[in-house]
Structures are given as structure tokens and as C-alpha cells.
């Protein structure tokens, strides 16, 4: 196993790639009772067209299959539901689907970890889809889609994506639509399962009080042998650099308008992603974070109630900056943010602010290591982006003011910005 250490935070991660292609990452954490395991596949909502390596057949799938598959994985041939089995063991089990991956996980605070591992590795390796159980799921997922239709925050986000992207599937609901899921059948699910749930397309991350070598053996024991598989060719729509539209507004049941500003970025390479991410976080904090002049203004005028949420989201298929919050006057915030960006570009970044916020961002990364679930989630999501999470701590000092200024000019461009608003009815 390859061992990577972060001396600043005194943690180690063990990396192993098995012969069948499965990536395993173990982050041992002494002194903690909780253990967290995630088994993820690099298959998310945006993977809707691909060539199956076994047959060379090109497959188009309806929107929402990755998420549908996630729901259906729990159902077993013997009539049991693996989620129930794990819960009955006192394990906090769950699964989720994002744009670029699907993950199955559980958290264990007792001595039942290996019983849980039996079940997890059994159900993820043994799909069971029938016409009947697929039909039944459509009702449940239909409810879930409707629930999100009611959720102003979720609609706000989707509308931002709709503004930024012409074709990229990130603009679609991960769960699909009532119409798209109606087309799902066992055949589609098996095709996707056989392609994307091959070990060579999967990563397992475990965090907790383990001896890595012993745990690795336990995992290997439970793997079902599978023939090696070639690379999955994924076909994505070509996305233009420009944005789709600069504004989208809807009315929903909210008390105060909520807004999200999006800035479309080019997809960063895995090598530059971490530094770019750190620089963007520092810039965002300088721009509209708690101690910024702009935030102070907007807070005092009552236009912002709290620090906006600031984020840089990226995968291998898209990248964007997001600033979101609640305000009586979203347009004003948008105008002021744009103006402040211009001021920053003109005057350069203030050195004292830059250094202070760099310290803050360092602290934010360290705090992530408080919790086995954050650690595992971080390593899994980063792994699918081709990143080792420790780089956020280790590359930290390489982010200079000059580099941040370069990123500021490269990323924070007015013609790449859009505004999404949800207003009260």
C-alpha cells in the first residue's frame, strides 16, 4: 500500500489499487469509536450516454438512472432490503447520487463493522431488478422528485445551472423527471450496473480505528471475482464556454427572495484544481465573506442577513463558482459584487486581508478532519476528481497573492456570470 502523510495535521492515508482495478483508500483514525465506509462508483447523473466495454454497444439512458439504480440496489433476491438489514445492525446506512458519482455507505459506532461490511459488499455486488420492483420504485422516486419541486433552494440551484450551461447535464435534476423515470426498466438498469459497477470504475474509502493491512484483507475476501474490463467511453455534449442566459427568476413559497450568483469556469486539470480551489475560496471570502467591506455594507443596509454561502464546485465535466443567500434585493447584491470584483482587479488584492483569510481557510480544512464521515466523503469525492485530499493542507503555502490575482482575472469575469432568483409569490 502506498502511504501518504500529512505532517501538519498528523494523519495518514493508505492507497491501494487491486488487480481488478478497485481503488481502496484507508485513513486510520485512532481514538475514535466511529467507523465510516463508503463504496462509490464513478457513475452520476451526467453520465447518460456511453459505450459498453463488453459489447461496444452505444447506450443512451433516460435522465435519473444513476439515482434510480441507487434506490434499487438495496433490494435483494431473498426479499430483504439491505438498508433494513444494516439499520437492524445499528449501523447508520445510506446512499446518495451526485452528478459524477454514486456512493453506498454506513457509519458504525459498535462492534458490528464486519457484519455491516458483509452486507454492504454483498448487496453492491448482487443486483436484483424485476419489472415489478422497478415499477414500485417509480412511485417512491416520483414522491422524492415532487418534494424537491417544492424546495426553493433546490430550484434556485437548478436554475443557476440552467443559466450557466447550454447542454451539460448538470442542469438537470439528479433524480430525473416523472416522465424520464417512467422509461426505466430492468434492462437499462442491468446495462448500467454491468458497465459502471465494475471494480475498475469504483473506489472504496474507509476511515476509523483500523489496521490498514488487516482491513484490506477483509475487503479482498469479500470481493466476487470479475473479469477485467476495458475503459468505459463516456460521451458528453460539447459545452460552449459562454453561458446560456444571464438571469432566471421564478416565484415560489418563500418569505424573502433567495438568490444565487453563478460564475462559469473552465474545467481545471487535476494538477491545478487544488490550488485553484484554495485561491477561489480566499477570493470569495475577501469579496463577500464576514469581514469584507462589501458584506459589512450589505449587512448594515439590511440587504444581507447572514454571510452568503460561497462555493467552488467542479468535476471533470464542469466547474463553477457559486454565491448564494437570502436578500430583499438580489439585483443590488449582484451589481455590488460585480463592482467589487472590478475594484479588486484594478487595485490588486489587499495583502493583510489575503494573509488573514488564507489562515482562515487553513483552519476550515483542518476542521474537516474532526469527523470520520467528512474525511471519507472528502477522499471519495476528491478521488473521482483525481485529487488527493491532503493536497488541500499540503499545497496551501504555494498559494500566493500573485497566484490568487491571476485566478481572479481568469475566473471572475462578468460575461461568465449569471443570477438566479426565487421570489415570494
Amino acid at each position: 500500500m502506498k502511504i501518504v502523510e500529512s505532517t501538519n495535521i498528523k494523519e495518514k492515508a493508505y492507497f491501494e489499487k487491486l488487480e481488478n482495478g478497485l481503488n481502496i483508500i484507508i485513513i486510520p483514525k485512532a481514538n475514535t469509536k466511529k467507523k465510516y465506509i463508503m463504496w462509490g462508483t464513478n457513475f452520476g447523473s451526467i453520465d447518460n450516454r456511453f459505450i459498453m466495454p463488453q459489447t461496444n454497444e452505444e447506450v443512451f439512458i433516460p435522465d435519473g438512472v444513476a439515482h434510480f439504480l441507487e434506490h434499487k440496489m438495496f433490494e435483494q433476491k431473498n426479499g430483504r432490503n439491505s438498508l433494513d438489514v444494516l439499520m437492524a445492525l445499528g449501523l447508520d446506512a445510506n446512499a446518495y447520487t451526485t452528478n459524477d458519482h454514486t456512493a453506498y455507505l454506513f457509519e458504525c459506532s459498535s462492534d458490528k463493522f464486519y457484519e455491516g461490511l458483509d452486507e454492504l459488499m454483498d448487496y453492491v455486488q448482487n443486483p436484483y431488478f424485476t419489472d415489478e420492483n422497478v415499477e414500485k420504485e417509480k412511485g417512491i422516486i416520483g414522491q422524492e422528485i415532487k418534494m424537491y419541486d417544492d424546495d426553493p433552494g433546490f430550484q434556485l440551484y437548478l436554475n443557476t445551472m440552467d443559466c450557466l450551461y447550454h447542454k451539460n447535464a448538470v442542469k438537470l435534476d439528479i433524480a430525473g423527471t416523472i416522465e424520464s423515470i417512467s422509461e426505466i426498466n430492468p434492462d437499462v438498469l442491468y446495462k448500467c450496473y454491468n458497465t459502471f459497477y465494475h471494480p475498475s470504475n469504483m473506489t472504496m474509502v474507509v476511515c476509523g480505528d483500523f489496521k490498514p493491512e488487516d482491513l484490506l484483507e477483509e475487503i479482498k475476501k469479500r470481493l466476487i471475482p470479475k473479469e477485467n474490463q476495458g475503459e468505459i467511453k463516456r460521451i458528453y455534449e460539447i459545452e460552449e464556454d459562454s453561458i446560456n442566459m444571464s438571469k432566471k427568476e421564478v416565484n415560489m413559497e418563500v418569505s424573502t427572495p433567495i438568490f444565487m450568483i453563478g460564475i462559469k469556469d473552465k474545467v481545471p486539470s487535476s494538477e491545478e484544481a487544488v490550488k485553484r480551489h484554495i485561491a477561489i475560496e480566499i477570493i470569495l471570502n475577501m469579496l463577500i465573506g464576514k469581514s469584507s467591506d462589501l458584506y459589512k455594507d450589505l449587512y448594515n443596509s439590511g440587504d444581507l442577513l447572514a454571510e452568503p454561502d460561497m462555493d467552488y464546485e467542479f468535476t471533470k465535466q464542469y466547474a463553477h463558482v457559486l454565491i448564494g443567500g437570502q436578500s430583499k434585493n438580489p439585483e443590488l447584491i449582484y451589481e455590488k459584487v460585480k463592482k467589487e470584483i472590478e475594484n479588486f482587479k484594478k487595485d490588486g488584492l489587499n495583502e493583510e486581508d489575503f494573509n488573514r483569510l488564507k489562515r482562515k481557510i487553513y483552519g476550515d480544512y483542518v476542521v474537516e478532519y474532526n469527523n470520520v464521515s467528512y474525511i471519507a466523503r472528502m477522499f471519495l469525492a476528491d478521488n473521482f476528481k483525481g485529487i488527493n485530499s491532503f493536497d488541500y493542507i499540503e499545497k496551501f503555502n504555494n498559494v500566493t497573492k500573485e497566484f490568487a490575482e491571476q485566478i481572479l482575472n481568469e475566473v471572475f469575469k462578468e460575461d461568465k456570470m449569471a443570477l438566479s432568483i426565487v421570489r415570494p409569490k
Partner: protein
Amino acid sequence: MNYKKEDYKNGITFHKINTNKFKTNLFAIFLTTKLDRENVTKNALLTAVLRRGTKKLTSQEEISKALENMYGASFDCGVEKTGDNHVMKFYLESINNEFLPSEENLSKECLEILLDIVFTPYLEDGKFKQEYVDGEKENLKQIIQGKIDNKAKYAYDRCVEEMYKNEPYGLYKYGYIEDLEKIDAQNLYEYYLEMIKNVKIDIFVSGNLDDKIINELKESKIIEDLKERNANFNINKENEIKPQVEEPKTITESMQINQVKLIIGLDVLDNRKESKYATSVYNVILGGSANSKMFQNVREKASLAYTAGSNYLRQKDNVFVKCGIDIPNFDKALEIIKEQLKQMEDGDFTEEDIENAKTIIDASVGSITESQDSEITYYFSQELSDEVVSIEEYIKKINEVTKEQIVEIAKKIQINTIYFLKD
């Protein structure tokens, strides 16, 4: 025992939790008062005004800058209802010195800032700064109005409000807009002075910290100056036995939504301390897990709901059933839920269900020590209920619960209020 408590002066208590599980230290100050209509809005506003500035760091911007410089120490505050008490909570979390890229001592500095925020607020002309009070009044107004934004939470809050109409627990923790209008910088500061003299004060430190941190606390001038007090709060010991309800209250409200939210408030007609363990197990079998009756029979088998579960409000002897249901199905869902309650009374559940429920509770109680905040909350709730039950004892008592006890509890559970939020 990794937990130590020291009564410093009457009404002022220090709590120290030793733990090496985290990269951070967490400091917390809790101010506890009785929950009542007169003060609930003031407390909510006061908490927000205090974070605006201290004598030394006179604005939020200065506070933020100081915290950012301390590697992003994070401050948080808020108000909570804990039984019939209203608690103003102030937290500061900072990286433990061990994990900083250079040698610095953050913990003492952190504690000082936190004490300053609570006990030496920024004043102008002998009162709170007008601008801060006005700004926070506006913010709080928006928070109170924002109650409707999270539909599931709103439905739950409304059900509690209806169940506890004209009682303290029915109060909204952020208060009321009509009361907010009567508060100004002068009367809020007068209230603060009076409150700080009588309030119950609990100070928590959690992390890999030396015992000398408590001495540093005692040496602080601010702490020295605090006088002993007969703290005015409610001990969450034993509630009175709730009266039998003849006919459950049904409340239906409309809002534009695609999914009905159904909340059923249940009373537990038993106030014995020991019964609480059986009620916990009852709740998990009914709706506390993916194996529960609610999840299995309402969500999975009948495909009626996306969310279906229950929670147990220990301090008030209530269980709440919560569902999100497709609009045409809500009568059917209610019927199936009532059937689940009946099955609980009839003992229509297995030994395996009981074991599963116990395992789930053990895991959740066992993991309290895995979060600094939840460990503080655990010891604080004991402080308020005047009992000391270690986590090990708690788990032991859960494991002693028998089927007979659960059925006995089930028979003492009655529907108090049915709340629908629909289109």
C-alpha cells in the same frame, strides 16, 4: 470519567470535557432562563445583538477579523428551547494548538473573546448601539417570517404550538413580531443587566486541554466580577401527568405545496423517569429507523409517503409522527398510521424489533462522544434535569427494557393533535 464539573459560585458552573478525538477545542457559554412570552423575543434579539461587538472589538467586522486570524476560529450563537427553559447559547471553536502550522497559543485568546462577547458588550451612551439593535430587529423579523420556508419544520412547529397553546413550550423560540416592535436599545440593555444578574450560567470547555484552562477562566476579571445568584430556571425533572384528551384536535392549514405534511402529536401519559427508556425504544420501533413500522408500512409497503418517521421529545413526554404524503393519499395514510399505533398497543412487534431498536439507540447514544457539541449538549441536559446518568448507565437502562414495559407505555400513549399542511 472524562467529564468534570465545578460549581464556581451559586448559579455559575464550569464543565470540562477531556477528549483527544478532535483537531479542535470547543468553548461554550449557556445562559438559561425560564421560557415565557414576556422574554422570549428579548432573548432571541439579545443573543443577536451581543455578537455585534464587544468593548474591545467594537464591530462584527473586527470580531470576524480576529477570528479569521486565529485560523478561522468559528463563533456561533442561537437560542434553543430545552423543556420549559429558553437557553441562549454561545460557541467558539478553534484549532487545537497542536495542529497549527506554527507555534501559537489560541485557546486562551479564544476563551477571552467568547467571554467578552457575552459579558462586555459594546455600548454607546450607556446602552446598546442603536444601529445594532435596529439591524438585528430587522433580521429577527425576517427569521420569524421565514418560519414558513422549511415546510416540514414549519408543520412540526405549528403542531407543537397547537398542542401547547398558552403554555411556555408552545412559544416560538425566536419570539414574535408584535413583541419585537416594543423593544429598543435602552429597554433591551436594561433587560440585559437584570438578566445577567439572575441567569443560570454554564461554561463548557471541551478538547485536548490542560486543567489550567479552568484556572485561566477563574483568573479572568469578567468571571471574578460575576456575583452568585439564585438562578431562575425550570428543572426538567418530572412533568405532571398529562390529562386524558377526549377527542384529538385536528388542525388543517393550506399553503401552496405539492405534498401534504402530516404531523401527529402524541402524549405519553406517564411521567416516571424510568419509563423514558421504554418510550425511547417504543419510538424507534414505531418510527425511528428504516425497520420501523412507519417506514415499512407507510412508506415501503403502501408506497404512500416519501418520508415517514417519528421522534421522541424526552423533556416533554411527547412522541411526534411525521410524514410527507402525496395529496390524494392522506386519509389512507392517517388510517395506516393509526393502525400502527394500535399494533404497538397490542404488542404486535417481535423480540427482534426490540433488539434492533436497542441496537440503534445504543449506537446513537454511544456516538455522543464523537462530536464535541453533542457531548456538551448531553451534559447540559443532565445539568438542567438535575441528574447524572453516564453514557454507559444510559445504555444499560435501554438494554433492560422489556416488551411488557413497551406495551404498557403504548397503552398510555394517546393522540393529542393531528396537524395537516396541504395545498
